[in-house]
């Protein structure tokens, strides 16, 4: 899962301190695996170096915790691009897709459209595999089937999430 882009997405809502970002991240995306402080600050300084955020010295004093980070235009457009692109239709993409959906809802972006785009990408891959299994040997067919069943499970999740977007928006809304 993409920690830098997720932090950027959280920063887009409002400028934040590293500590607050970590807390938000753990609340929404941590799932029992909290993000280490070291990783938060390392990621933020990399984002600052690359021009996606700037560190505003909000309070006097030293230390990373005193800095408030603000997303730049470039950072916003990186988020925009990332959210719009479907994830490669491979098994176990839920984590990334879940993050995208939640961030999209938080920022008032069209989460349903992202899910539809993802759905289309999955269907495209399923058509490829279906074609493969139709033309191929039994071994090809069995391997293709394995992929098809995984993609189908993802699609069920995508459909269910699409049907529950309103409720999810209320839950993650501020």
């Amino acid at each position, binding site marked *: 899962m993409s920690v830098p882009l997720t932090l950027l997405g959280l920063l887009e809502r409002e400028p934040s301190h590293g500590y607050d970002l970590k807390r938000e991240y753990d609340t929404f995306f941590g799932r029992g695996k909290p993000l280490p402080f070291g990783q938060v600050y390392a990621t933020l300084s990399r984002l600052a170096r690359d021009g996606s955020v700037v560190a505003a010295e909000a309070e006097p004093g030293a230390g990373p915790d005193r800095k408030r980070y603000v997303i730049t235009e470039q950072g916003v457009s990186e988020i925009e691009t990332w959210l719009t692109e479907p994830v490669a239709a491979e098994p176990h993409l839920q984590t990334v897709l879940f993050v995208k959906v939640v961030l999209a809802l938080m920022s008032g972006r069209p989460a349903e459209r992202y899910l*539809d785009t993802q759905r289309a990408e999955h269907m*495209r891959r*399923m058509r490829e595999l*279906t074609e493969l299994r139709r033309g191929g040997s039994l071994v090809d067919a069995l391997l293709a089937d394995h992929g*098809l069943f995984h*993609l189908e499970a993802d699609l069920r999740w995508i*459909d269910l999430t699409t*049907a529950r977007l309103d409720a999810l928006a209320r839950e993650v809304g501020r």
Partner: protein
Amino acid sequence: MNPAPSTAGGDQARGLLEAREVSVLFGQTPALRAATMSVASGEILAVMGPSGSGKSTLLHCLAGILTPNSGEVHFAGRRIDTMSEGERSALRRDQFGFVFQFGQLVPELSAEENVALPLLLAGVRRAEALERARSWFDRLDLDGLQGRRCGELSGGQAQRIALARGLVGRPSVLFADEPTGSLDSLAGEQVMELLVASARDHQTTVVLVTHDPRVAAYADHEIIVRDGAVAFTARTPA
């Protein structure tokens, strides 16, 4: 029975079959709200979406079974929603084939008579109709079942008989509404294999209603119906 009609002008390019802002009300309940979509000639299109979203209603409008409350339906450059019931039933008989979730075979008839039925209804002589019907048994892996009644067929066999009946008249468009909905996955796969192979052989256009992505993956494209409207079209713009 007839070759796909050729049409002059731009309609063919836009789609062999088109729904334009089609709305349908059942009493107070809107089943379709300004649904717009099209199917190109020779295309296999999957119509997906949650149950109750309006997929079957859309299929019925496209097939001239149901007249929409508003909007237009065009087939091969002709507007069909304003046709008389007689014209539409001739159109269904001559140009369209149907397969539904439960084969809906006629229990009093043998398997081959069931397949021959559309031809018999279209006035084809009995001997010829039965001969043409029989030619499908081999293709659809049904040999030996010609004389059976529905009660003596497995679900998969009955559904392949229904498929043969849908295709026997060489329709321009085959309408299939959850054709594998009552089958296990192996039998469903066999039906889809045969449906797709036959459609490709004869350049038959297919409107395939299904909520099952594995079935939809046999199609060239998919559209999604949600709350009576076409919510998404995964199609590269022409």
